[in-house]
């Protein structure tokens, strides 16, 4: 079995069998992570480059650890976006990195489409670690993996994604992944942050959180970017929390065994109450652990696709 593409640029580019293969492979890696020796020689001799145009300690560390546990050499290459505009072009930077012998390039960038552009222009495998407001495919895959660990099947589940859908690459990747795997997706948030056009994709949209959470199996909370405040998306974080914050009371509308997820880092008291974040429905820390297994699986599988 193999993935069809040398790159993981978007969930939209995957079908159910690709996603299934990644999740299955991730299960094997989760095994490895439970051992004393957490490293396997599978990708010995390969070089992985973390090309991060946006600061993100969490995601970068997760990818770095995943790559190291597969025995690849890892190089971190951080560029500040401000210097990019004036400095070396994206393509030149990427070609330089490739010329250094990178086999896998993990890229994060504040512009949508950058992972796609690099995948088209490079022979190396490109993994999208988040591009602008487009996609963050490994986050969605690790979320699916986490759900699959707790629920028998993804098919038929009712999943609510709550918050800033418009600017969230996590929300979009999850929406595509969940829909592909047969779950029913609801988007909840203020109309300024939930584009109505998404209804065309067969998802339901709610601005009333109490209604939207009714009988859902999964509640996925999104991080609210503080800088949206005062730009007309919502008046204040206080009002936001009042309408769309996940409190124990609100969570009670969902199924009893509903899972609460959050891609992190959380704004406690803005989108999620601490009681919920730390409560027994929360699988937020599982998500972090699973992220490692899923990223190992992705790197391992991509390395097997001959470009």
């Amino acid at each position, binding site marked *: 079995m193999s993935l069809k593409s040398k790159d993981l640029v978007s969930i*939209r580019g995957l079908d159910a069998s690709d996603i299934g293969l990644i999740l299955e492979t991730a299960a094997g890696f989760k095994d490895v992570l439970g051992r004393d020796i957490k490293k396997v020689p599978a990708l010995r001799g390969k070089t992985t480059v973390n090309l991060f145009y946006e600061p993100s300690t969490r995601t970068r560390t997760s990818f770095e650890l995943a790559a190291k546990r597969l025995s690849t050499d890892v190089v971190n290459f951080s560029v500040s976006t401000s210097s990019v*505009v004036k400095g070396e*072009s*994206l*393509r030149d930077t990427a070609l330089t990195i490739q010329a250094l012998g990178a086999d896998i390039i993990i890229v994060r*960038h504040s*512009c*949508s*489409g*950058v992972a*796609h*552009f690099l995948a088209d222009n490079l022979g190396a495998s490109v993994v999208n670690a988040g*591009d*602008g*407001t*487009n*996609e963050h495919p490994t986050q969605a895959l690790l979320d699916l993996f986490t759900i699959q660990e707790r629920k028998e099947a993804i098919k038929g589940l009712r999943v609510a994604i709550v918050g800033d859908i*418009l600017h969230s*690459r996590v929300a*979009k990747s999850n929406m595509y992944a969940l829909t592909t795997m047969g779950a029913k997706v609801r988007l909840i948030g203020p109309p300024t942050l939930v*584009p109505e*056009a*998404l209804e*065309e*994709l067969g998802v339901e949209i709610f601005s009333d959180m109490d209604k939207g959470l009714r009988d859902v199996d999964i509640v996925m909370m999104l991080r609210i970017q503080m800088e949206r405040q005062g730009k007309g998306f919502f008046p204040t974080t206080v009002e936001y929390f009042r309408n769309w914050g996940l409190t124990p009371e609100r969570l009670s509308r969902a199924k009893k065994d509903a899972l609460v997820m959050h891609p992190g880092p959380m704004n406690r008291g803005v989108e999620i109450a601490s009681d919920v974040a730390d409560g027994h429905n929360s699988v937020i820390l599982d998500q972090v652990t699973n992220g490692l297994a899923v990223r190992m699986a992705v790197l391992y599988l991509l390395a097997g696709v001959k470009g």
Partner: protein
Amino acid sequence: MKIAIRNGRIIDPARGIDGIGDLVIEDGKIKAVKSQKSKGRSQRPEITGATREIDARGKLVLPGLVDLHVHLREPGYEYKETIRTGTAAAVRGGVTSVCCMPNTNPVNDNASVTEFILKKASAEGACWVYPIGAITKGQKGEELAEMSIMHEAGCVAFSDDGRPVMDSLMMRRALEYSKVMNVPLISHCEDLSLSSGGVMNEGLLSVTLGLKGIPPQAEEIMVARDIALAELTGGRLHIAHISTEGSVALVRAAKKRGIADVTAETCPHYFSATEEAVGDYRTNAKVNPPLRRKRDVEAIKEGLHDGTIDVIATDHAPHHRDEKLGEFDFAPSGISGLETLIGLSMRLVDEGVLSHEGLVEKTAVNPARIIGVDRGTLAPGAAADLTVVDTETEYTVGAAKFVSRGKNTPFDGWVLSARPVITISLGRIHEWE
């Protein structure tokens, strides 16, 4: 030098001619035209002594096209295009008169820049060049430029194209003041606060691509405002590059009510492609206003058909390859359009949206009328600007082979069936196989 073009289908809507016939050029001027459908019986033109015989059998013989909206980039952005390469691209596209937008560096906001452009054009240009001056100094929207002096220097219209005049009072004053010269103001309609850094049409596609959208209303609000200001002032308003259904409706209503002196243009890309062309972040489909939805394309065709839209112009906006290669958000907007103008527009004739005559009206007669120049006709005595178009050919658009320095087009690889094989401009014959 005497040139005879024989057996072509001569289309000259200015004189109501559409028929097979012969045309003779002498000393850079049309000497005589004889076609079966000519009004008034003219004699078969003198054919003796022609130094050049051109057989145009099966081809169209059209007046050289007049493109109201071209960015020649010179001075200041010669790496994108120059007056020499831009006018050569025009001629390749059957265009023999171009109006060049003022967003150069320095901006064409004073007579010395206008004079520079005209001097350069007469030295190096392959066709007529009509500069368009800036409405405001530096296109900053703050102070009126010296429109009257620039008009004397040769500007045929005024525009802050590339950016709108956001201040309504400034636009009002400009429209009022333009009456001194009786020239049109060409308005790039975009409410900048609403378009707010958008890079493509707003809709499902922009959301799924994670690209910031520009709603059609960002254009329509300004179309409505400018029509209202034209009504208020009595100034002449020409609306550039209409891209939406709503804009067509607003112009149609304004024309019907007869309240304002308003004309409108669209570009080939707005009736040939939709936002889908952006596909997976294809920067060559990034243009402002952005490519829209199917319903907008249909509305624009209807607007061309019923006369709401007077002009097809290219908004030829060449960019350097490197600028379009990279982040979609950072890539400049624009399409290199001169060399696909006829190929894309002729599809409207094939679809029955326009007649051949209608097409020539939109691309030659009307634009010449709007800027008040004596072009766009094959009348005896007129300058011998013409193009011979093969409509039976089938060819693949190859951007790499463009004469223009700008190879940026979303139509690369499209199969089209009409293109000029001969253009006569400024007394020179340009021929291609």
